[in-house]
């Protein structure tokens, strides 16, 4: 293959009036051609029939909040920058059915791989793809294909896409690819790349598929003068963008400035209209909409583009984790330019400038970065103009997390409190049975959204889920009776680090339903009791009737080898136990925490208060483990809902040590 490329890696010449030959070859492969064309006052991407549909002689100009199509002297077809659309619209469509659910006589059934791949995506050929867009595609490839979970739909669509890149000649005032190191030169990730001159194109290949296509055109080599002119084109584009910004400090700069006044200032102008995120070629956040027939027996879960600027995006039953527009703008900018590095090893921005041009309020991220992220201008080294196609094509790794909702049977259920039930599930699914304490599952019923539920016990023949009816979906789950079925995907996330307990004292602190994910850990303590030091369990609840697993806790309390203390926030006269907050159970205790490991689960505020007391008792931040609640939606790190700073709570957590979380644990609105 490297051989094949080398043999044809001589730049070729395609006369301007023969561009249709290239298009015809691609169509001959049964490909639909997606290219730039003028529609509704913009150069958009759409299916084109031939070169005639390309915007010959049209250009574009863009500035913050403003975009116009312009008329040009020449009749070049690609002398424009990027319009509002990017190939993302086809590789990662705005709406896609990802799951089918049915209620059958045999119970609920769900379609297999989730997200479900499009059966047979039409093979596409994109023509006119710019360096910044190639970079964006590479970034989304990494997000969706390099695991742990793989987006089957993206994989199917992406694998069938052929990329004809075009060197940028006339950037607009909103372009800043040179600052992000993604352009203007096309260097990698393409099948064929064109450099447009008045009378034709320099053609180079970047992949075996590209070789096949170009060979079919049997073009003569490009002559030296044309090559010179081609170099001038890209050099001109680079100069047009002026001196790049220095992005060195932005990674630390943004994460270090969660309280910067600049956030509130930009929030004054920000419309939280989501335009920036939806024109961005790398933004990948989605939500799932449930569509069903009237009685909910057949349902389709449709994935739609969503945005971190929407109030509902970070919502859980209790409220939104990012109530203010300021919080959401900070999330977007910080994620894009900083935490993306921590998550995916690159920036999330390719400098295409769409978010600047298509912001109705004309907010310019470059200015916000300068104000908040300490970004300044510096000269940058020139890169070679003509690209060498070295990079191997995308490698697609198989998903390493559960890729489907399996049907499990309800063997029975126990009422814990007025609104909390424990479902006893039977399953033979190896994965589920092999889960570890602290992991959770996504549980769903046809026509209902999937809800993250922590596993409250592992049995040899199944597991228990303890569910609080916080909303309609969870209520429907709590109402399931013996013999009914539900869909479960899991086990998900990182559980409690059980091994940390060996040879140490163990402190377990639970608040309310927070005891559910800790119960399997307690089971583990009992199983390995001899390997552990002292085991202390502190339980808090709102009132005596809000306590979970009452009988079981009673039995535990009788054991000599475990210390169990309980308290409630308020009680009536008949309650003879302790009343007070959970930390009062041990803030006067005499034990020494220097050789203890602590596991805490409860409302975030309670965990914060608890961890302070634990710290004062000698348990260091790297030995205090908490489990966080966020609005996990896909459960496998693909939908973006549960981000907390640099973490996806669903796949990096939900269990974290305080050392890992750092300030993220206590900063509001992250």
């Amino acid at each position, binding site marked *: 293959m490297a051989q094949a490329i080398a043999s044809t890696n001589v730049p070729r010449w395609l006369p301007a009036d023969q561009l249709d030959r290239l298009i015809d070859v691609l169509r001959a492969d049964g490909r639909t051609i997606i290219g730039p064309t003028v529609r509704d006052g913009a150069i958009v991407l759409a299916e084109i029939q031939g070169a005639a549909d390309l915007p010959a002689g049209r250009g574009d100009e863009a500035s913050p909040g403003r975009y116009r199509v312009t008329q040009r002297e020449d009749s070049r077809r690609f002398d424009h920058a990027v319009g509002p659309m990017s190939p993302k619209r086809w590789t990662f469509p705005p709406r896609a059915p990802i799951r089918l659910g049915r209620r059958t006589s045999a119970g609920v059934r769900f379609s297999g791989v989730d997200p479900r791949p499009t059966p047979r995506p039409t093979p596409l050929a994109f023509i006119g793809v710019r360096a910044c867009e190639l970079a964006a595609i590479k970034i989304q490839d990494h997000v969706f294909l390099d695991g742990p979970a793989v987006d089957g739909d993206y994989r199917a669509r992406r694998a069938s896409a052929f990329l004809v890149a075009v060197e940028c000649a006339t950037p607009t005032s909103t372009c800043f690819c040179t600052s992000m190191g993604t352009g203007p030169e096309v260097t990698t990730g393409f099948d064929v790349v064109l450099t447009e001159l008045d009378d034709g194109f320099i053609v180079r290949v970047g992949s075996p598929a590209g070789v096949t296509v170009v060979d079919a055109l049997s073009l003569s080599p490009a002559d030296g003068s044309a090559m010179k002119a081609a170099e001038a084109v890209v050099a001109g584009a680079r100069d047009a963008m002026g001196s790049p910004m220095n992005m060195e400090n932005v990674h630390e700069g943004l994460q270090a400035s969660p309280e910067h006044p600049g956030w509130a200032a930009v929030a004054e102008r920000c419309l939280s209209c989501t335009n920036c995120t939806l024109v961005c070629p790398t933004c990948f956040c989605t939500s799932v909409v449930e569509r069903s027939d009237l009685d909910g027996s057949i349902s389709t879960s449709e994935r739609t583009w969503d945005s971190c600027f929407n109030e509902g995006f970070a919502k859980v039953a209790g409220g939104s984790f990012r109530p203010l527009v300021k919080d959401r703008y900070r999330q977007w900018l910080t994620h894009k330019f900083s935490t993306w590095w921590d998550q995916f090893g690159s920036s999330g921005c390719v400098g295409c400038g769409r978010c600047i041009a298509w912001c109705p309020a004309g907010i310019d991220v470059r200015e916000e970065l300068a104000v908040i992220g300490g970004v300044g201008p510096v000269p940058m080294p020139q890169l070679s103009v003509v690209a060498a196609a070295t990079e191997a094509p995308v490698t697609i790794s198989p998903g390493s997390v559960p890729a489907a909702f399996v049907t499990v049977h309800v063997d029975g259920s126990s009422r814990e409190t007025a609104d909390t039930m424990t479902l006893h599930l039977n399953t033979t699914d190896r994965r589920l049975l092999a889960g570890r304490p602290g992991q959770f599952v996504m549980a769903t019923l046809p026509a209902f959204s999937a809800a993250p539920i922590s596993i409250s016990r592992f049995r040899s023949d199944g597991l228990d889920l303890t569910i609080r009816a*916080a909303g309609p979906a969870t209520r429907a789950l709590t109402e399931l009776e013996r013999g009914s079925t539900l869909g479960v995907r899991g086990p998900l996330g990182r559980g409690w680090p059980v091994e940390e307990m060996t040879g140490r004292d163990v402190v377990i602190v639970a608040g309310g339903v927070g005891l559910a994910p800790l119960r399997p850990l307690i089971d583990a303590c009992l199983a390995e009791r001899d390997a552990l030091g002292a085991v202390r369990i502190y339980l808090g609840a709102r009132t005596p009737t809000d306590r979970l697993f009452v009988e079981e806790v009673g039995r535990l309390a009788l054991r000599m080898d475990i210390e169990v203390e309980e308290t409630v*926030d308020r009680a009536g006269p008949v309650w003879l136990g302790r009343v007070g907050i959970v930390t009062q159970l041990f803030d006067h205790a005499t034990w020494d925490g220097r050789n203890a490991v602590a596991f805490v689960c409860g409302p975030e505020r309670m965990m914060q208060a608890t961890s302070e007391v634990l710290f004062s008792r000698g348990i260091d931040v790297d030995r205090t483990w908490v489990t966080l609640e966020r609005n996990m939606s896909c459960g496998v790190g693909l939908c973006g809902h549960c981000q907390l700073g640099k973490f996806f709570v669903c796949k990096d957590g939900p269990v974290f040590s305080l050392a890992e979380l750092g300030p993220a644990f206590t900063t509001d609105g992250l």
Partner: protein
Amino acid sequence: MSTRSTVDNALASGWFGAGLTDAARAHLADMAHLTSYPIGEVVIREGQAIDSLAVVVEGRLALRLNVPGRGAVTVLTIEPGDVIGWSALIPPHRATSTIVVLEPTSVVELEGAALRARLDEDPILAAAVLWRLLDAVARRLSATRTQLLDLFAQPDREPW
């Protein structure tokens, strides 16, 4: 009638007394005596004059407030080491809540007027005792604040 040493040991057994210097604790022990309360006894009644301060040695007491319509609500339990009746030191010397015995309880009791007089004439002892009291009150205050947040409260139900 309890001996001075049993009282001193009792004081030392809880976090409040343990945090005092031996000398200070000895002074208090001199003027204190042990008292026991059976289950159900009302040790202090909200609004009543209060003339003694006590440190719980063992047992459990409920600190209750009467809420019209809801009856008595226990907002806190007093555990060994905790202090009750600190109003005995601060005018107008009236109880701010009712305290009822939940488990057989014994306390080290200090007569209010005597204690006040003793602290007035001995600033060093006063400082020691009042620092501990301040600590006890501060902890109870911050705990009450957290309780106010009602962290385990549920979101409102919707029509569906």
